[in-house]
Structure formats: C-alpha cells, structure tokens
C-alpha cells in the first residue's frame, strides 16, 4: 500500500528537523492529521500547507500517494 509523502520547508524544516518523510496513511484523513502525527501539535496560521503542490487548508482531505508540504508564510520577491 502506498504511503503519504510529507515535506517541510524553511524554518519548519529546521524546527522539526524533517525534510522529507513517508507516512503510513492509517488514521490520516486531512492535512491537520498529517501535521499532528508529525509534530503532536495543532496547525496555526504560521503553518501553510499544500497537497500535491496546490495550497490546502487544515481540513483538506489527504489520500495515500499524496505529497503534503508544510511551510511558513512565504517571503519571496
């Protein structure tokens, strides 16, 4: 069975020491579930998320095979 790939960027990657990790999909239904399973915390507005490279919300559904990313507010340009 395929897993969920999770990525973290910038300050979140450094804070949680996670660059990329594979998660078993059991018990995971949403983006918020992914975050909680990795950090033990609830998402705040300082944590942005994407599913398959599209912006997502904490309640966005996550399925096996998805790539879920977490990152802080963007600061490009």
């Amino acid at each position: 069975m395929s897993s969920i790939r999770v990525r973290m960027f910038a300050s979140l990657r450094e804070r949680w020491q996670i660059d990329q990790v594979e998660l078993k999909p059991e018990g995971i239904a949403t983006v918020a579930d992914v975050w909680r399973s990795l950090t033990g915390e609830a998402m705040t507005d300082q944590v942005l998320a994407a599913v398959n490279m599209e912006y997502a919300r904490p309640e966005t559904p996550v399925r096996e095979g998805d790539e879920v990313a977490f990152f802080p507010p963007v600061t490009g340009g």
Partner: protein
Amino acid sequence: MAVKLVHGSFDPWRWLLDHQETRLSPGSYGATASFVGTMRDFNEGDRVEELFLEHYPGMTERELEKIVAEARDQWRFLDALIVHRVGEIRPGEPIVLVAVWSAHRGPAFDACRWIMEALKHRAPFWKKERRDGGTRWVARNTDGYDGY
C-alpha cells in the same frame, strides 16, 4: 508567457530584452511595465550580508504560472515574463523581474503590479538573511500598497 527560476546572478534587463526580441513582434506592443526587486544591504536598520532563497521545486513554478494565468483573466496583455532567483544572493543583486507587454499602458501597469503582489504573497519562496554572522528566516512579506 514565461516563468523562470535562475540560480546565480542574472541581468534582468538582458532577460527582458531577450524575451521581447524573441517573443514579441515589433510594433505590436505600446507599453512595457516592469519591476525589478533587488537585494538591499540594509533591512530594518541592520546590515544584511547575504540572503539565501529557498523554494519548493515544482510548486513554485506552478504557482507563478497560475498567477500569470489569473492576471490574463483580469487584463488584456500580450505577454508576461517572471524571472526569480533562488539560492545565495548578495547585496545589490537582482532577486526578481516581472515584465508585462500590452497594447496600452493601463493593463501593463495593472498586471505588472498585481503579479508582483501575488508573487510576494503566494509564491513559495523563503528568505534567510545573514547578519553579523548569524542567520534568521524573514518572518513575513510586507504589503506593497501601503506606500511607505
């Protein structure tokens, strides 16, 4: 329409001109609005020695392309170009170029500014600054309309 991420220093005016010469027909456009963002050596009173720009390969390009497509839904323009640096950047070096070509000036100005604001607020880039030997992530982009 073109979106490019570049590693290492780039000359925004060279990119703009190359795009114009290869993609646009002379006499077709009457207006070219452009913006170049450059790394300053001071930020909030502190000397900044270096910047590191992280991005999310794949999503960053996709988000920039989406921004250009959304601009096209709002304004009539002929072409747009976004070039953005990633990796290490030194003070005085360009970070980003946005250029828009159109028949008339209104849409060129509007779309160029809107694209730049959307990029600042949506495109997945993250800046880490080095000041006095230490590094820190930039917390948040400011609003470009507040006129300060």
